[in-house]
């Protein structure tokens, strides 16, 4: 696929901002995809950014008092409310700038969260903020479970994954529900920009963050963030797992600009999902039949997405 890089976007990893806004010394596990993704996001956002963060791995590994990994202004309030806090930050910066109480410079309000803080307990605040159309970016770092409290299932946990509250057993496949499709829920909110991303595709992710930063209005990025600890995989597989998620079609990379879908990474032929599942301990118990069920579902979801890409809504 031939790529076009509009001005301001990253073409090459060497052209990435050298400044670290998310600094070394934090306490994430080895090979944490979430920490890597946060770092990439910060690089793409740049200095004029304020971050609101809920309770979860990110908060815990980056801010044990009196240390902090953040070189950007950062605020944590509670678990369900990053989007609401972000709304307030945006409103505060806007009005103070208007009144001349802070420098007259655009500063982006960004709210972030894990999949639990986004898809479950925080979805009300998120939906509210998106619907109100704050000039804000929300990034979900989806590691597919409540990792901070010890790998409990969330509504973003995939079907068949074994977690501590949905364990696989003689009578159980593990998690019995299909992953909630948050990007679609956000598209339904008619926000200006929605994209999926993952920690293994740094340039793609950073460019999406940069695009979202420029959007006037609300933007949402859903970033699959590999969690070797919770996925029961070797830490060195972090990047490999992200790639496999994309190459198997389990986690397609696309963006939706004003309702128009576009793939940003297109694997030629999809690899079998088994390649992705078999390297993760959380899927170890699955039988060939169960893997087939997952494969069928992945195929179906992929076709649905293709259909949206191929049949965009008419231009207004």
């Amino acid at each position, binding site marked *: 696929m031939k790529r076009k890089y509009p001005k301001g976007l990253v073409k090459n990893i060497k052209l990435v901002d050298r400044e670290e806004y998310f600094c070394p010394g934090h306490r994430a596990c080895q090979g944490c995809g979430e920490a890597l993704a946060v770092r990439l996001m910060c690089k793409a956002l740049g*200095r*004029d*950014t*304020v971050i*609101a963060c809920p309770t979860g791995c990110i*908060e*815990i590994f980056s*801010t*044990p*008092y*009196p*240390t*902090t990994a*953040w*070189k*950007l*202004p*950062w*605020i*944590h*309030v*509670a678990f*369900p*409310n990053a*989007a*609401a*806090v*972000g*709304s*307030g*930050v*945006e*409103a*505060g*910066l*806007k*009005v*103070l700038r*208007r*009144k001349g*109480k*802070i*420098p007259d410079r655009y*500063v982006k309000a960004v709210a972030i969260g894990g999949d639990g803080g986004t898809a479950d307990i925080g979805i*009300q*605040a998120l*939906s*509210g*903020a998106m*619907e*109100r159309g704050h000039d804000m970016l929300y990034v979900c770092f989806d590691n597919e479970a409540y990792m901070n409290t010890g790998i409990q299932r969330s509504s973003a946990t995939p079907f068949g994954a074994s977690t501590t509250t949905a364990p696989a057993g003689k009578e159980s496949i593990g998690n019995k529900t299909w992953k909630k499709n948050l990007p679609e829920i956000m598209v339904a909110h008619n926000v200006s920009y929605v994209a999926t991303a993952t920690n293994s595709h740094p340039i793609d992710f950073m460019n999406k963050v940069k695009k979202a930063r420029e959007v006037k209005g609300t933007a949402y990025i859903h970033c699959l963030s590999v969690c070797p600890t919770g996925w029961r995989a070797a830490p060195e597989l972090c990047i490999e797992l992200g790639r496999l998620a994309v190459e198997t079609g389990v986690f397609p990379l696309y963006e939706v600009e004003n309702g128009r879908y576009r793939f940003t990474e297109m694997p030629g032929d999809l690899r079998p999902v088994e390649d992705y599942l078999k390297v993760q301990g959380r899927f170890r118990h699955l039988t060939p039949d169960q893997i087939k069920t997952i494969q069928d579902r992945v195929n179906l979801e992929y076709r649905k997405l293709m259909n949206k890409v191929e049949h965009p809504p008419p231009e207004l």
Partner: protein
Amino acid sequence: MSRRVGMEVAIAAAEAVALCNIDVAAVYPITPNTHVAEHLAEIVAEGRIDSEFITVESEHSALSAVLGAAGTGARTFTATSSQGLLYMQEVMPIASAMRLPVVMVIANRALSGPLNIWNDHSDIMLQRDMGWVSLFAENGQEVVDMLIQAFKIAEHREVMLPVNVNMDGFQLTHMVEPIELPDQAEVDRFLLEYKPYATLHPDRPITMGAFAMPEIFTEVMKAKDVAIVNAKKTILEVWKEWESLFGRKYEPVAAYKTEGAEVVLLTMGSMGETAEVAIDELRREGISAGLLKLKLWRPFPFKELKKAVKGVKVLAVTDRAVSYGGPGGPVCAEIRSALYDEPERPVIVDYIIGLGGRDVSVEDFITMGKRALEAKIKKPREAYKFYGVRGE
């Protein structure tokens, strides 16, 4: 120059907040504070103040948004009642731990269930230990005055804590009262510009709300406690200044005809005005009765209370909330404990009264005063007594 207006108290509350030139408000409607939200939205919509009014989707988000805005250095406001206050509870102790000077007006209302929209104090009493400065208004004028004072107290460098102003739902919020509304210049002179200490801005990046391990958590809690205890000094100063500017006196424990009183009633909020009438009546009947009105709930005014009950034989506390199976209603339990070490403490009786909007009349106060006097001799006493229960 202040102007004298006849105004619904909830509307006047919004006017007072507007006079404070807030930067950001986020309010979610709930009876009986809805008029505050609506009128404030109107004021912003008319461009009378330059503020952001965030129409949040819940009270949880209202306080959260206000915290985010306060983090940027904005002057912020929210309002709620009852279930809404409970919904905010998760965020309340965080506001005080982060030392963000948010101001909130609470139109006090009973907690569900059964669902009840009318007044009592069960909502705020449950939030007693959130680390907020807590004031109780007796009438519309006090709501207006206390809201303006609240910003000055909250933003004082020595305080830096959230403040709530309590007004009885319906009994105050929906009453049209004569109110002296200060003018903008007066408020500007009184309430200086808010100069936040540290803010969320990239020019000086800071981390707000870092998580605390056991080795530091106690110190943060102690700092909050020291701040709220010390806040009393600021509150008294602010009230002194208010009195000198506007001639209206504010005290943590206001006394009415307590000199030489044998029995003293104690109220919080709007019941004080009814109780005054009862005291006059009791005095006419030859009973030396008096009244104390508690206006400062947090920090608790130990010194003033002890002074106020000197020589009093019987103290009858009225509680508009229940501590089910506890050692007294929330107010009485505290007053008993505050006076426990006094060498000569009064006999204390506790009446749970006026729950969920039940009317409390002058006659009720007269009866309570008389019964309290009898209680002096009858022992042992119950920890608390529901007053005026049907069929009893």
